[in-house]
């Protein structure tokens, strides 16, 4: 356990807005958002069908008359069908894994980038960050929103950033030592990996200067938090977000660390049954749905996250008036999160299709034997795939490897197996075996 105590600091007084005022603010901003997307083809058509305009929104209850937006809808309008501003106003593109080889592009105006930095600053500050701190960011910097998102938040707080990015853990440990960072930002499993590599380098993770960690981009358990805090001698905070909504900054823990405060002045959250899409009773788990209230480049209305969590509206001792969400406990689709990367089984299928023309039976096996996730993709060798030339079989193996990397961004182990050895089932084939679930890690 860390001996550090977190003060209850608030980055933005708006976090303390009384609920009646917050509701009025949400309503005004909801109308503005509906007006903003009026010319976006998907919403234009949906509003027309539902006979909705910005004016027909009289109360927050009218939200339920607006359409849901899904990942498939974003994909159907690839690349930029959901852009709500002229292209010239887009200051930056980020991206998120798509269900197929194409990513989902997430555009930001200058205003969006400013909002984003503030939202990340909120949870960083509520999680102990001060301007005099140094923050080591071990997230990928690229289309992925984790790196740049946290970077913007740290700079907004006025703290010092070390943009370590991803990979080369020995070098990361060296940087943590030599620059004496106070705060670590990465995935929870990577935090454990850093600790492990530090030990293998003869260092006690406790001896690093780290005081806090802000961990996210993959689900993790309270047990994992206890483990990370014990191994590294710091306080670990959870944060949550998704690129399509804004990236990190949708919610984060306060000093009380009993749920993550959702930034309700920027997002309306709903918790619905994954099948019926009706709201679940307060406190029950359901699929989180977000409507952006201030995003300009790509507002989304009732975006189905497929993440399952519970909402707790009870007042928090920290004074923030926003609803808190529990940890994400599962998904209502088949998406996997591996080493912080979103992966859809359909992407693996697409890779196999590209290499072999047709997709043979395959199985994705995920495990976390040590700190990091490992993936093995078992692929059945059919008569048409097999030839007597060893080099050709090796080349087939390598091509599958490369194609999976190209489509998902993830390095996996490809294992060619004999036919009829992977489980067949009636109806939907079982494509994934996730040992992390059995181990209670997820």
């Amino acid at each position: 356990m860390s001996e550090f105590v977190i003060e209850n600091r608030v980055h933005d007084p708006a976090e303390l807005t009384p609920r009646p005022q917050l509701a009025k603010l949400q309503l005004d901003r909801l109308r503005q958002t509906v007006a903003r997307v009026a010319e976006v083809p998907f919403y234009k058509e949906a509003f027309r069908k539902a006979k909705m305009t910005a004016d027909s929104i009289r109360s927050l209850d009218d939200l339920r008359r607006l359409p849901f937006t899904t990942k498939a809808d974003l994909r159907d309008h690839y690349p930029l069908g959901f852009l709500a501003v002229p292209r010239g106003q887009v200051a930056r593109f980020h991206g998120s894994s798509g269900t197929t080889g194409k990513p989902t592009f997430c555009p930001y105006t200058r205003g969006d980038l400013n909002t984003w930095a503030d939202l990340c600053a909120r949870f960083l500050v509520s999680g102990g960050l001060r301007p005099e701190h140094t923050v080591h960011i071990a997230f990928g910097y690229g289309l992925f929103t984790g790196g740049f998102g946290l970077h913007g938040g740290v700079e907004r707080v006025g703290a010092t950033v070390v943009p370590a990015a991803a990979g080369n853990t020995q070098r990361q440990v060296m940087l943590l030592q030599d620059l004496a960072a106070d705060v670590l930002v990465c995935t929870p499993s990577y935090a454990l990996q850093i600790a492990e590599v530090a030990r293998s380098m003869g260092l006690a993770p406790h001896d690093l200067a780290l005081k806090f960690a802000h961990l996210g981009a993959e689900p993790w358990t309270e047990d994992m938090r206890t483990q990370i805090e014990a191994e590294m001698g710091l306080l670990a905070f959870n944060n949550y977000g998704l690129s399509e909504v804004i990236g990190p900054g949708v919610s984060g823990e306060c000093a009380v660390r009993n749920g993550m405060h959702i930034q309700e002045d920027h997002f309306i959250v709903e918790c619905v049954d994954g099948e019926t899409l009706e709201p679940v009773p307060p406190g029950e788990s359901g699929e989180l749905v977000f409507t952006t209230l201030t995003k300009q480049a790509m507002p989304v209305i009732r975006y189905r996250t497929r993440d399952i969590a519970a909402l707790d509206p009870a007042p928090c001792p920290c004074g923030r008036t926003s609803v808190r969400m529990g940890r994400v406990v599962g998904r209502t689709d088949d998406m996997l999160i591996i080493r912080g990367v979103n992966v859809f089984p359909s992407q693996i299928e697409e890779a196999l299709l590209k290499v072999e023309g047709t997709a043979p039976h395959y199985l994705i096996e995920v495990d976390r034997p040590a700190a990091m996730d490992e993936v093995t993709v078992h692929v059945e060798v059919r008569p048409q795939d097999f030839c007597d030339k060893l080099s050709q079989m090796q080349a087939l193996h390598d091509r599958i490897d490369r194609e999976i990397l190209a489509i998902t961004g993830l390095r996996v182990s490809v294992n060619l197996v004999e036919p009829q050895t992977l489980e067949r089932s009636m109806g939907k084939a079982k494509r994934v075996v996730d040992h992390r679930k059995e181990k209670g890690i997820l």
Partner: protein
Amino acid sequence: MKIKQLSVFLENKPGRLSEPCGVLAKAGVNILTLSLADTQQFGIMRLIVRDWEKAMKVLTDAGCVVKVTEVVAIEVEDRPGGLAEILEVIETASINIEYMYAFTFRRGDKAVLVFRFDDPDSAVKELQAKGVNVIDGVELYSHSS
């Protein structure tokens, strides 16, 4: 003048070698010779049997992935230099050898080697022109019981 060789895909898993061998044993198929090529991830077992069609059927029925390839059996003197001389003939004729292995038995005082060439037909023509004794299947199988 070409021999049919069966290639069987082997997963990298304990016991993957004994399964096809067991299948053939049960079907009464005698393996004349075999060779294993492997990588870290998988292997290819190459077999020469008497009744390749029967072998292919029982292996395929048992769920193995099998391919037929044509290889060339060459008789060489079973003495030091026997192989080297043949290889010189092959290399001088610029015939590319993909792989080779030896039969487990001899014909009299001669040894029998198996070669996989990219173009077995033209390789056979060239070798016979140089006086190399290429054995055909009938001769080969008549030896073994």
